[in-house]
């Protein structure tokens, strides 16, 4: 009873504070978006061009390797890579979000939530712009431009919830176990190969196939791939699984943050 009212009190405090500190949040998002390419000639264009070029290279290599038709494989790959990149970058970059802001955290009070949140919001903007470019590329490459594309924003909402929960988990955990910073890249690489991004879900058979089915990212990739590749809405089952996983991840992430928030500053 008391712990319930206590956590309700904590959550209302968080909601009130996130309103109060929204200016700081926007400033941090702006900082994330504008700082990277300062004094480069093409500036923000790199954010869009770089991942597209990377994916292009992957597409050419694997289309040749698997003897696939390049155009359709490109759309297939991009539709999986863009959500994956957002997720993977969210987890690996928010890992050190408290550690990198140590100077700030130790000198002035700010709700801890805003550090991983600003990173994720910044990356969400990047990702959605990449997605917009992809949607334009779809036409010549044989994808379907359909009303189902309107589902993409909802897919982003679910993916963001999932990624944010995971980001909260790893950002708090890394403060206590610094080794995680180095382990996380390997874990994410393994996770990448267990997610049907470069291959079709049904193409993987054998001992690890069940792992791919259990992998929550499989559903999230499908949320994007169904509208982009097939011009269809994802099946209700896929949406339900993704929503359930997203809600669970977000709840768990918040629970970790609430439980450890006041200890973070002592461990930086």
């Amino acid at each position, binding site marked *: 009873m008391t712990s319930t009212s206590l956590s309700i009190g904590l959550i209302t405090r968080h909601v009130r504070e996130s309103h109060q500190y929204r200016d700081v949040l926007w400033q941090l998002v702006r*900082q994330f978006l504008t700082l990277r390419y300062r004094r480069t000639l093409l500036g923000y264009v790199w954010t869009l061009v770089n991942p597209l070029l990377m994916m292009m290279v992957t597409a050419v290599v694997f289309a040749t390797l698997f003897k696939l038709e390049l155009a359709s494989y490109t759309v297939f790959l991009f539709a999986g890579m863009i959500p994956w990149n957002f997720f993977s970058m969210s987890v690996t970059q928010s890992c050190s979000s408290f550690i990198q802001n140590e*100077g700030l955290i130790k000198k002035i009070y700010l709700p801890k939530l805003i550090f991983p949140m600003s990173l994720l919001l910044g990356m969400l903007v990047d990702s959605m712009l990449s997605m917009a470019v992809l949607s334009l590329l779809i036409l010549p490459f044989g994808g379907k431009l359909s009303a189902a594309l309107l589902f993409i924003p909802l897919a982003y909402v679910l993916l963001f919830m999932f990624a944010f929960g995971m980001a909260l988990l790893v950002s708090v955990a890394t403060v206590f*176990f610094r080794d995680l910073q180095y382990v996380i890249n390997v874990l994410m690489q393994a996770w990448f190969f267990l997610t049907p991004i470069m291959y079709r879900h049904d193409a993987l058979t054998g001992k690890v196939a069940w792992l791919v089915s259990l992998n929550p990212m499989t559903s999230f990739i499908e949320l994007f791939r169904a509208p982009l590749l097939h011009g269809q809405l994802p099946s209700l089952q896929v949406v339900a699984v993704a929503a359930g996983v997203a809600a669970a991840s977000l709840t768990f992430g918040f629970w970790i943050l609430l439980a450890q928030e006041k200890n973070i500053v002592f461990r930086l």
Partner: protein
Amino acid sequence: MSRITVEDLSIRFRIYHDRSPSLKDYVAGLFRPSRPASVSDFWAVNHVSFRVEAGERVGIVGHNGAGKSTLLKALCRIYEPTSGGIQVHGRIAPLLEIGAGFHPEFSGRENIYLNGAILGYGKGQLREIEQEIIAFSELEEFIDTPVKYYSTGMYLRLAFALATAVQPEILILDEMFAGGDANFVRKATTRMHKVIEGANILVVVSHDLALLERICTRVIWMDHGKVKSDGPAEEVLREYREETAPPVALAV
């Protein structure tokens, strides 16, 4: 009305003797629960209670490591109480470290908005005070230059002008900050005094006893995390002076 209530406040620091426990140690520790912990506790603030009412000017004195700065940081919510509680009524301005949250790649103007948001100023408010801050810090020519190219003096001037631009109800000061050329120090001191006078409550940590005597009505003497003495400024400062050995002038 502004008020600060500190009730039985304790803040504990864990000191890790060898290093921060890694994931490996943690996992290994799961199987060897009897392994002696290589941590010791340090109570930087130990069962401290006091109350500051509107209008009070409180100075905090004590030796290095007495818990003064930890107490200030707790008032500013940087450290959460390990036990006990703090209640603050009123808008608090933490002037603990000048220029905290400045980003070196951002221009002076961008940092006014970034750091201003961190200090709790609204966007509209910042737009209003932007010109005044630039004028006060004498940075008209360089305001759109990244602050990493600033000299220490320029940096301090901007940070000071921003931090003191809005009159707070409660002012929390750690030592006295000022920087730059002599002319600016004079200007900064005047402004500082104005902000101090305008504040409803002042809590200041300083080793400058003459300064505390001048601006404080009440002094709290901290020793090893506890309140050793708390009362009118003159009395506590006299006690403090008597107990601490008279400073020996260093012959150079």
